[in-house]
């Protein structure tokens, strides 16, 4: 297959037997080696634990075996995909295979491919799949909460659902915007032909996919009862399903860290001539700020989970009070990652909103420098607020005024983003297209999320709201209202570029309005429920709160249906009808819309030279302040 470089353009020989096509480094090999590695690890684990091989199918708990099984499984999976080929052939002194660059056609999407545009689409589909699974969990949770006592699932299954939903969303959706859109568009936006480290780019995606399936596999090992926070010592006490959580989050952390490093390296070193930092598209700035957070926060997560895994397997007692450890240590370490994490989720959303606004308002981005300093300010401050998650825990209680201050100060740089939003819209000529509607919805949702955050950041007031449904409503407003809405804005805006096809306008509008209304109808009442004293993560609640809970559940089902509308729209428009998109339907001046569709393998024939930022919209003002002429 890779004998000559010319293989790239010549079509595959006709009549090649099926077995010949299946052999090689592809998804099938990866799954076979992954399963093989899994059982190898399982076997070794049981040998290490001093148990006989026959016991592997018994119900006996063996964390060593499961963790090793996951480890070898992931390694086998990656080898099967072909990640070892390049380093091994270099080690052996042979010419490195460039197969992943040569292959063309649909097959590229199902294996290791180092083309950043392929990885972007792989991310979009892969993450969409796990977003769907996480959403289904939420539907099941809301079904259970129709009744004040458990009727639908048992308490153990309920907690597993809660944990799966939270962990899936927080883990997989971390790369929700950076994965698909930054991988696809950052190189094009900065005038580069590829990412700085294309193999690492592919690795981040396949690590994430392996992680996703590991998290789903927790249902075979009893689930995990801790929610996405995984607090110790409950973590230490939990059944084997907890190891899936540990493995999942460690792999997500690794993927995040590599993704961040790759983005930083690309943005710093590969900008085209003339693209100074002050001309960088604002979306690229947000990706840069997010990447800094990813690189600094994710290693903390991996280390924390390693300690938790050691506690569970060889009884090291980092976090177990009776053995000299401290449950506070885990809380500190976890939130040292966990708080930057929530800004990792929010920042790319800021970027998408501010990137799209100038296109749809036909005005330059208002307050570019303020927006950039807002993003950098948020990322810097996000490392100094983590103990606001622990206001009532008794840890370091004298420092609560400091964390209250630092948390509330974060709303200043976040306010910059709002000012830039409002400034850009001021006296504009806004077309309320579907992506623009999602951006406006972002402003509303994130505003409510931010304002409810004030109640949580105020330590006295947090006494009531901490650990209640109020918190849940708050972070769904910031994360779902902030990240998922902008994720959809990105889909509607950029998929015409990625595929050359566009969505059905009517279905898209139905999707937006049903999603926006159902989202608010689901999460606004949760503020009230929290204020009325309903704790998070319970399947039993006071019967007096049932009416409101039923309302929330029904709204949540409608929200789920709105996602189905999107799915129908995507399948209908992109697969069946294949509506052709114009080459630049939004009349955008950004570079990614100036290259041909589909984007050529190397993006540009000639590296572009920049002489301005991409926000050259609007009619210049004359001296008197009035516009000179009508816009072009």
């Amino acid at each position: 297959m890779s004998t000559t470089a010319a293989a790239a353009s010549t079509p595959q020989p006709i009549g090649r037997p099926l077995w010949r096509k299946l052999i090689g480094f592809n998804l099938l090999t990866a799954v076979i080696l992954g399963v093989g590695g899994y059982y190898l690890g399982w076997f070794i684990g049981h040998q290490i634990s001093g148990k006989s091989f026959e016991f592997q199918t018994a119900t006996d708990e063996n964390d060593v075996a499961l963790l090793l099984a996951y480890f070898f499984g992931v390694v086998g999976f990656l080898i099967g995909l072909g990640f070892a080929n390049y380093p091994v052939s270099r080690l052996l002194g042979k010419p490195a295979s460039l197969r992943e660059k040569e292959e063309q056609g649909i097959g590229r999407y199902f294996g290791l491919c180092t083309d950043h545009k392929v990885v972007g689409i792989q991310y979009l589909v892969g993450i969409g799949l796990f977003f769907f699974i996480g959403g289904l969990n939420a539907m099941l949770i809301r079904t259970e909460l129709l009744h004040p006592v458990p009727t639908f699932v048992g308490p153990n299954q309920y907690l597993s659902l809660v944990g799966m939903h939270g962990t899936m969303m927080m883990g997989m959706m971390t790369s929700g915007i950076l994965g698909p859109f930054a991988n696809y568009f950052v190189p094009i936006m900065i005038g580069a032909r590829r990412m700085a480290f294309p193999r690492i780019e592919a690795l981040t995606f396949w690590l994430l996919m392996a992680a996703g399936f590991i998290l789903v596999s927790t249902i075979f090992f009893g689930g995990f009862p801790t929610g996405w926070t995984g607090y110790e010592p409950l973590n230490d006490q939990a059944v084997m399903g907890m190891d899936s959580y540990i493995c999942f989050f460690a792999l997500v952390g690794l993927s995040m860290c590599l993704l961040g490093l790759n983005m930083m390296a690309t943005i710093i070193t590969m900008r085209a001539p003339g693209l100074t930092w002050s001309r960088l598209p604002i979306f690229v700035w947000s990706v840069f700020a997010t990447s800094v957070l990813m690189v600094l926060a994710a290693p903390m997560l991996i280390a924390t989970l390693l300690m938790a895994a050691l506690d569970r397997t060889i009884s090291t007692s980092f976090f177990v009070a009776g053995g000299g450890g401290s449950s506070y240590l885990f809380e500190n370490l976890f939130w040292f990652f966990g708080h930057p994490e929530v800004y990792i989720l929010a920042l790319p959303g800021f970027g998408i909103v501010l990137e799209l606004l100038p296109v749809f308002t036909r005005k330059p981005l208002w307050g570019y420098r303020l927006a950039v300093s807002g993003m950098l300010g948020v990322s810097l401050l996000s490392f100094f607020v983590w103990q606001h998650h622990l206001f009532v825990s008794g840890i370091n209680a004298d420092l609560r005024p400091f964390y209250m201050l630092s948390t509330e100060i974060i709303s200043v740089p976040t306010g910059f983003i709002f000012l830039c939003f409002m400034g850009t819209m001021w006296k504009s000529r806004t077309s309320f297209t579907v992506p623009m509607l999602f951006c406006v919805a972002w402003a509303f949702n994130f505003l409510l999320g931010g304002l409810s955050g004030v109640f949580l950041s105020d330590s006295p007031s947090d006494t009531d709201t901490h650990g209640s449904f109020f918190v849940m409503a708050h972070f769904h407003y910031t994360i779902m209202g902030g990240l998922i809405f902008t994720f959809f804005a990105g889909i509607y805006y950029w998929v015409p570029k990625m595929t050359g096809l566009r969505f059905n306008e009517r279905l898209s509008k139905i999707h937006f309005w049903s999603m926006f209304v159902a989202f608010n109808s689901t999460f606004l009442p949760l503020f009230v429920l929290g204020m009325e004293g309903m704790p998070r993560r319970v399947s039993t609640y006071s019967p007096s709160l049932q009416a409101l809970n039923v309302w929330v559940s029904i709204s949540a089902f409608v929200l789920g249906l709105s996602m189905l509308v999107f799915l129908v729209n995507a399948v209908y428009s992109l697969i069946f009808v294949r509506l052709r998109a114009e080459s630049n339907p939004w009349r955008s001046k950004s570079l990614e819309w100036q290259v041909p569709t589909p984007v050529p393998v190397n993006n540009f024939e000639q590296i572009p030279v920049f002489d301005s930022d991409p926000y050259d919209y609007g009619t210049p003002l004359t001296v008197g302040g009035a516009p000179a002429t009508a816009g072009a």
Partner: protein
Amino acid sequence: MAAETHPGTPEPNHARRFTALWVISSLIATPLVIFLLGPSLPPGNGSEQASGHVTDNTVLLAMATPVLLLVVIYLIYASIFFRQPKGGVLEGPAVRGDSRVQTAWVVITSVLVLSLAAYGTVRLLADNGAGSGSGPKPLTVPKGPKLPVQVIAQQWAFTYRYPTYGGVETTHLELPDNEMVELHVTSIDVIHSFWAYKLGVKADANPGVDNIAFVKPTHEQSFEVRCSELCGIWHGYMFDKGHVVSPAAFETWIHEQQTKFAPATKVLPPYSKTYSPEPTRRAE
């Protein structure tokens, strides 16, 4: 602008119109929030701390209202007046910023935020932790006599020890009315959180940690106690009813408990700030 499409029609003064809309609606809505919504805000007046939280929530809501109105009215205003005509290809003015507006915004939001933090700090310290868990050595301690009550959390129940009454351990919580109570919250297994919603009290129960919270009930009532930190499969069932009773009734009740639990008190470990059990291992 409008002048381009309809020559001769003067562009309305958007800045003045929008500001007027916002100021007037804020002037109407904020007092409504303070005087109508404020008194009915949770968690009610079960204790001095709870009443304090009602005040805090009212203040925060009153500060949030103009901000909410600013953005919401802006979004509505913009989507009515700053539209692209159907099928139009008009461009907006090429304005890239306004240093006066930006500076004013930075200054105003900073002042708002700093005053919020200052207010929160004052409230936190003046109210001795405002009913939240303040660690083993709270920075401020209320003056006067205090009734120490230890809350011991375990999977999946709370028990209560009264060290000034011979360290008796009860299965329900009763508190005397109008007396300052010093809650010592600890756990003997995983992390729990003691939440008496109507009293405005919440304190995490960590193994090996003595987490102190102060609360002073202001009238006789029954209140719900719930665990608010995920602690395992029966977390949702970790609730109980507590009572605030008159001091005389409390004395009667606690002496009943002392008699009733006398055999148990003898074999209990002596009262201590924390209890450190052997770590539980699943394999054992």
